[in-house]
C-alpha cells in the first residue's frame, strides 16, 4: 500500500481562451500527500489549487501528467476509489429547491448509502432540525456544513476541502476548523486547500505551497517554517546583557530595550552566559518565521503571474 493518498507527477492543465490562446493553469506539478493528518494546499488565488483538485476528482481532464489516489491511477480508476474520497470543490453545489435532506438522499442513493447514514451526517454537522428546509433558504455557513455532511456520507479516508471557510463568520470558521482537526485526529487524511495562511498554519501538519501552477515547497509545516535561529531577550539592563552576549560570541542587536540574539547555539547558552554575570531573564522567546513570511517569500514572483495563469 502506498504511503501517499494523493500522488501527482508532471500534472499540467492548459485552457484555450476564446481567442485561441493557450493558458497554463497548472505547470507540470508534482504533489504527494502523505497518509494521515491534515495537509495544507496553499497558494494565492488563481494559483491552480482548485484546478488541481478538480483534476484529481475527475471533474477536469489534465492536459498531461499522472495522478493516483490511494495508489490507483485516476481518472481511469476513480470509480474504484471514489467511495473513499469526500470532497467539497469551491462553493457548495446543490439543488436549491430541494431540502438539505433531499439533496443528501439523492447523493447517498447513488452509492447505495442507507438513510441512517444521511441522518448521522446531518447530525454531525449540526443541521438536524433544518434538514427539511429548502437549500436555498440556508445561510452560507449552513450550505458549507451541508457540503461537509455530503462528504461524510461515504465515511471517507480522504477528505478534500477547497477553501471550506470562504464566506463564513468567525464562529463558522472555528467550527469548520474544529471539524477538520477532529477528522484528522480520527485518521482521515484531509487535503485542505486554502489561501489563508493562518488557517493552514493552525490546522495542518504538512503543506504544499504552489504559485502560478507550480509547486514551490512541500513538507511538514514545522520544516517549512524552519528551525529557530533567533531569540528575543528582555532583561532589566539590556546594555549590560548586550555587552555580555557579544563578548560571548553571540550576534546581538538592541532595539527599544529588547535584544535580538541571532545564533545557531541553543537557548540555554544564552541563559547560562547571562546568569554567569548575574543578569536574570525577564523573557526569552524563540523567534520563528511564520508561514506568511515563508509563503510570501516563495510566491512573491508568482503572484502576478498567477492572475492570468489560474482558473
Amino acid at each position, binding site marked *: 500500500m502506498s504511503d501517499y493518498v494523493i500522488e501527482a507527477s508532471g500534472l499540467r492543465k492548459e485552457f484555450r481562451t476564446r481567442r485561441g490562446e493557450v493558458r497554463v493553469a497548472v505547470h507540470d506539478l508534482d504533489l504527494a500527500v502523505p497518509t494521515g493528518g491534515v495537509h495544507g494546499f496553499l497558494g494565492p488565488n488563481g494559483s491552480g489549487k482548485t484546478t488541481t483538485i*478538480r483534476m484529481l476528482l475527475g471533474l477536469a481532464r489534465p492536459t498531461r501528467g499522472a495522478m493516483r489516489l490511494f495508489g490507483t491511477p485516476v481518472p481511469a480508476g476513480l470509480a474504484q476509489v471514489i467511495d473513499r474520497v469526500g470532497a467539497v470543490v469551491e462553493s457548495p453545489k446543490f439543488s436549491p429547491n430541494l431540502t438539505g435532506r433531499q439533496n443528501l438522499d439523492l447523493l447517498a442513493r447513488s452509492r447505495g448509502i442507507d438513510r441512517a447514514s444521511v441522518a448521522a451526517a446531518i447530525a454531525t454537522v449540526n443541521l438536524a432540525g433544518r434538514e427539511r428546509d429548502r437549500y436555498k433558504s440556508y445561510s452560507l455557513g449552513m450550505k458549507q456544513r451541508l457540503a461537509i455532511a455530503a462528504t461524510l456520507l461515504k465515511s471517507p479516508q480522504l477528505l478534500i476541502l477547497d477553501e471550506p471557510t470562504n464566506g463564513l463568520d468567525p464562529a463558522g470558521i472555528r467550527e469548520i476548523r474544529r471539524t477538520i482537526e477532529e477528522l484528522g485526529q480520527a485518521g482521515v487524511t484531509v487535503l485542505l486547500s486554502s489561501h489563508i495562511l493562518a488557517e493552514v498554519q493552525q490546522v495542518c501538519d504538512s503543506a504544499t505551497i504552489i504559485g502560478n501552477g507550480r509547486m514551490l515547497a512541500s513538507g511538514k509545516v514545522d520544516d517549512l517554517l524552519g528551525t529557530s535561529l533567533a531569540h528575543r531577550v528582555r532583561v532589566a539592563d539590556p546594555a549590560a546583557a548586550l555587552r555580555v552576549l557579544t563578548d560571548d560570541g553571540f550576534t546581538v542587536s538592541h532595539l527599544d530595550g529588547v535584544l535580538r540574539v541571532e545564533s545557531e547555539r541553543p537557548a540555554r547558552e544564552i541563559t547560562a552566559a547571562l546568569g554567569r554575570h548575574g543578569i536574570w531573564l525577564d523573557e526569552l522567546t524563540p523567534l520563528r518565521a511564520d508561514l506568511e513570511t515563508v509563503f510570501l517569500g516563495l510566491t512573491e514572483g508568482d503572484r502576478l503571474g498567477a492572475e492570468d495563469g489560474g482558473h
Partner: protein
Amino acid sequence: MGRLLGLELTRLRWRRAVVVLLAACVLVPAAIWVAVAVETRPLTDADVQRAEDQVQAELQQPYLRDEIERCTEDPQMYGADPDDVEASCRSMLEPRVEWYLTRQPLDLANEREESGIGVITILAALAMLLGTTFVGHDWNSGSMSNQLLFEPRRSRVWLAKALAVLLCGLVVGAAVLASYWTGAWLLAGARDVQASGEQWALIRNQNLRGMLLIGLAGLAGYALTMLFRSTVATLGILFAFTVGGSIVISSVLGEAAARWLPSTNFLAILQNGTEFFNGSTEGQACTEQADGTMSCTNMETLTLAQGSVYLGVVLVVIMAASLWSFQRRDVP
C-alpha cells in the same frame, strides 16, 4: 445501473418544473378533449331554429335581390344553368339552413388526423421541454459536479438520466394518449357514433408511434441540454431552429425543401406516411389518363420508413455528440 435509474426518476419527480410540465401534459389534452366535445356536440332544435331565422333575415337583404338580378341578367358570368336561369341563380345565391349549421358531428377518423395529431405534437413539445429543464437544472445549479463526485462514471450518469427522461416520456405519453382516446371512445358511445375496428386499429397504431415520438422528443431535449449545458441555450437554439431552420432549409433545397423539414418527417412517422409538396420539376409525377391526357402532380409521399430514418439519424447524431461532450469536457 438500476440504482442510478431509480435515483434519476426520483430526481425527476422532485423537480418542480417537471411537475408543472407533467400537469400541463394532463391539462392541455383535457382542454382539447373538452373543446372537441363542445365543437362536435349534436345539433339541437334551438340550433336549427336559429339557423332558419338567420336564413330568413338574409333573404330579406336588398343586396341579395340585386345579386340575383345581376345573375339572371348575365347568367354566363355566374355559371348559371341557361335552361332555368332564375332557379339556378337562386339555388346558388340564396342562403340555406345548412350554411349556418357548421358544427360537424363527432367523427373519430377526423379526430385522429386533427386533435389526435395535435395532442401528440403538444405532448412531444412538452416532453422536450421536460428533458431540457430536468438536466438544465443540474447544470445551472452546479449540482452536476456534486453528482459526479459520487458517481464518476460519466457514461453511466448520462445513460441513467437519458433512460429516466425516455421512460417518463413513454409512460406519460401512453397514459395521456390512452386517457384521451378513452375519453373520445366514451364521447362517441354517448353520442352513438360508430367507428370500425379498422379505424380503432389506425388510432391505436398512430398512438403507439406517437408515444414513441413523445419519449424520443424528451430524449432529444435532454441530449441537447447535456450538449449545451443550459436550459436557456437549448431553448434558444430550438427556437432559432424552429423559426430560421425552415427558412435555411428552403433557401438551400428550394422547392424540394419540405422533404427535409423535421415537421414533415414527424408527420410521416405519426401518420404512417404523409404527402408533401415538391415544387421542383424532379418532384413532378405525371400519369397518362384513360382519355390520353397527362395528369401531373407535385405531391409526393414520404413514407414511415423514410421519416424514421431521417429523425433517427438526427437523434443519433445529437445523442452521440451529447455523450461525447459529457465524457470529454470539464465539468464546472
